[in-house]
């Protein structure tokens, strides 16, 4: 904040570079993360288009790409996974929304460390450039899958991408550093910079979620950073940390990777859950049901997420007693998550629901994520997992979790806060067309893949013709349906980009609070100027006071003082509140 004291001038007189590229303003940094993430999503989306076309029409030339070689296929699969998790889900959900919302929702003028924030984005951008550059190094981008299991990842003899593999490790490590810096900023800001009057349980759920997610990230990524250093040395110097021939252990990487990798699921899930928690009360005009339950279950999820990682390794030769233990913890973690979804459904119950585009995204998040969660039960149980391991069933399962998180959650957030970000409304008709086609196409991709997976269809196979059991016309038909679903999903995305850009310049002017919502960001002008609030707000109540009895308005913003001492409710009127 001291930065602002030194430079009190508004941003309009600072020139383009200072305003958009070298800014310490949390909103500009949020936009940088958002647009970088969207750009990376295009690259990740193109990668999946190419390899899905290869799977549906093996050996044929893919439009806009050409014939796919086995090596290219491996690189594309690896880069799709890496990009979508680390360069799309993380920057958009955690960094873009975290940066945008935390100071605005807490009622302060910026992050506590604006320069660290800028550095965080710059390191992230560098990591993105390094990763994308790996497409053009000799041998092509890393082809050892996004989980980078050694010996495949450690030895160029196996992955055939000597330079791509090393560039990949460096890019991922840089990206982690960027998010560590960002996370420290988020947590510190939330702890120390809340508006006067805002107590712990007056903080909007999405801020809670982003902060808990940042702490999870900080607590889980360290071992993988150490593991990445070891992998780097294995690749470059020829050490043998993961090489059994020298006494090393390839399973060590799996432990380090999944000790991070499983909490990572919740690192991106919790912000998406938070976004949905903000949207549902606004469009149900009803108080969020069980605020504290959500906070406690999120904390519980975070803690339990550190004890489930080995469910990824049931077939890696781990001790069967350990497998039973991790089966139990994995099944337990579905309880708090289910509880959160029930709480959202309870919020809807009896509300006066408006199906705006953001609300549609939020509702579809609940519905689709539910399918992802339920199929996870099969995979968490060691017995079933041994059959289903590394099949398309697993792939369909985690896409039913990650797609709702990273894509549906992000669209929900973007469509909901767009009026705040750009001061104009998005077009509802285009928004709904985009929504329905995306959701239907998404299910057309992954329901067939559940079926092929259950039939034994193995992942990471470039061409099924060598596998007579899998090269059947029935399975191939399902693969083609999935690819057609994907192509439709990609084909409708220009509608979103068109809507986004047109609404930015030509949309209906939004005003400060178009959704008649309670949280503090809606009390700032749209878009908020440098410094956010004309006068820093004070907080008088929790964030979800909708349809309060004895009030004419059906919302009651956090910053509006009590107009008159409310009449004491009669003792008998205690009921649904």
């Amino acid at each position: 904040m001291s930065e602002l004291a030194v430079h009190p001038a508004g941003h309009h007189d600072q020139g383009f570079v200072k305003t958009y590229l070298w800014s310490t303003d949390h909103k500009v940094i949020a936009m940088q993360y958002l647009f970088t993430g969207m750009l990376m999503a295009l690259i990740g989306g193109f990668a999946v288009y190419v390899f899905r076309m290869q799977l549906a029409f093996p050996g044929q030339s893919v439009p806009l790409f050409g014939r796919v070689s086995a090596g290219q296929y491996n690189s594309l699969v690896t880069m799709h996974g890496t990009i979508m998790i680390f360069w799309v889900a993380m920057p958009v959900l955690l960094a873009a929304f975290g940066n945008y919302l935390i100071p605005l929702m807490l009622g302060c003028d910026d992050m506590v460390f604006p320069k660290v924030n800028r550095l965080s984005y710059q390191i992230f951008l560098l990591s993105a450039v390094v990763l994308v550059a790996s497409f053009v190094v000799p041998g092509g981008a890393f082809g050892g899958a996004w989980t980078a299991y050694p010996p495949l990842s450690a030895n160029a003899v196996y992955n055939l991408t000597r330079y791509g593999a090393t560039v990949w490790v460096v890019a991922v490590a840089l990206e982690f550093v960027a998010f560590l810096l960002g996370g420290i900023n988020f947590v510190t800001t939330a702890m120390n910079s809340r508006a006067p009057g805002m107590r712990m349980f007056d903080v909007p759920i999405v801020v809670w979620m982003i902060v808990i997610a940042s702490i999870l990230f900080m607590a889980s990524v360290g071992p993988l950073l150490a593991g990445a250093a070891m992998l780097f040395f294995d690749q470059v110097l020829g050490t043998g940390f993961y090489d059994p021939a020298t006494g090393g252990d390839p399973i060590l990487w799996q432990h380090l990777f999944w000790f991070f990798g499983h909490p990572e699921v919740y690192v991106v899930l919790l912000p998406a859950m938070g976004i949905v928690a903000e949207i549902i009360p606004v469009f149900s005009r009803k108080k969020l049901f069980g605020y504290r339950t959500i906070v406690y279950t999120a904390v519980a999820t975070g803690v339990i997420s550190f004890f489930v990682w080995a469910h990824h390794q049931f077939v890696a030769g781990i001790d069967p007693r350990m497998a039973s233990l991790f089966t139990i913890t994995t099944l337990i973690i579905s309880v708090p998550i289910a509880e959160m979804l029930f709480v959202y459904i309870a919020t809807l119950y009896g509300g006066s629901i408006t199906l705006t585009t953001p609300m549609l995204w939020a509702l579809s998040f609940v519905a689709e994520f539910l399918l992802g969660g339920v199929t996870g039960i099969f995979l968490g149980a060691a017995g079933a997992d041994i059959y289903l391991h590394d099949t398309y069933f697993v792939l369909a399962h985690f896409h039913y979790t990650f797609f709702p998180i990273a894509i549906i959650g992000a669209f929900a957030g973007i469509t909901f806060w767009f009026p705040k970000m750009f001061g104009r409304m998005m077009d509802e008709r285009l928004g709904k067309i985009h929504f329905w086609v995306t959701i239907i196409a998404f299910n057309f991709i992954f329901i067939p893949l559940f079926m092929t997976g259950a039939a034994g269809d193995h992942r990471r196979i470039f061409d099924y013709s060598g596998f007579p059991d899998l090269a059947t016309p029935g399975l191939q038909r399902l693969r083609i349906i999935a690819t057609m679903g994907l192509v439709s999903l990609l084909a409708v995305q220009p509608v979103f980009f068109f809507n986004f850009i047109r609404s930015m310049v030509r949309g209906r002017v939004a005003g400060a609070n178009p959704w008649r919502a309670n949280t503090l960001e809606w009390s700032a002008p749209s878009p908020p100027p440098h410094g956010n609030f004309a006068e820093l707000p004070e907080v008088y109540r929790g964030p979800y006071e909708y349809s309060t009895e004895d009030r004419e308005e059906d919302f009651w913003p956090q910053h509006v003082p009590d107009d008159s001492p409310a009449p004491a409710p009669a003792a008998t009127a205690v009921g649904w509140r």
Partner: protein
Amino acid sequence: MEVPTGRLAIWWVLASETVVFGGLLGSYIMMRLRHGAWADQAANTNTWAGAFNTLVLLTSSLSAVLAHQAAERADGPKAARLLRYTILGGGVFLMVKAFEWTHEIGEGFTITSGLFWSFYYTAAGLHAAHVVAGMVIMFIVSLTAARNEELHRVENVGIYWHFVDVVWIFLFPLLYIAK
């Protein structure tokens, strides 16, 4: 009640650093327990050099604490001088380290000579990188402190330096004493 923002951030930095070293040392301990033969490799580390470095590093923390005390009394120039003693301590530590490594590499024990040596150079190297970073930050802090500015930073960099000490207190027995 509320922890000052800078100090709070340092604690979060240390929390994330703890798991970095925790992951590395945890991996080392798990593997070491399974490979008794590593003791033969470990026998070649110089325990006396390690012990001397422990002494140097812990002593350097003393002047960091005294610098904090001086900063509390708003005596910036004194705090800056004391911080520079700590930097000196870090410098001695690195020189001993350089002497050790030169000797060991000369004997043929490089990072690829066996998994013990891989862990030895990786863990101690990562720690040394933290020592260097601490020295650079402390030098920058000493410049502002000498002008009596931003004195709260003296304490914050001191907290970081103590963490670097604590990591070494784990490394010394694990890499030198356990033979």
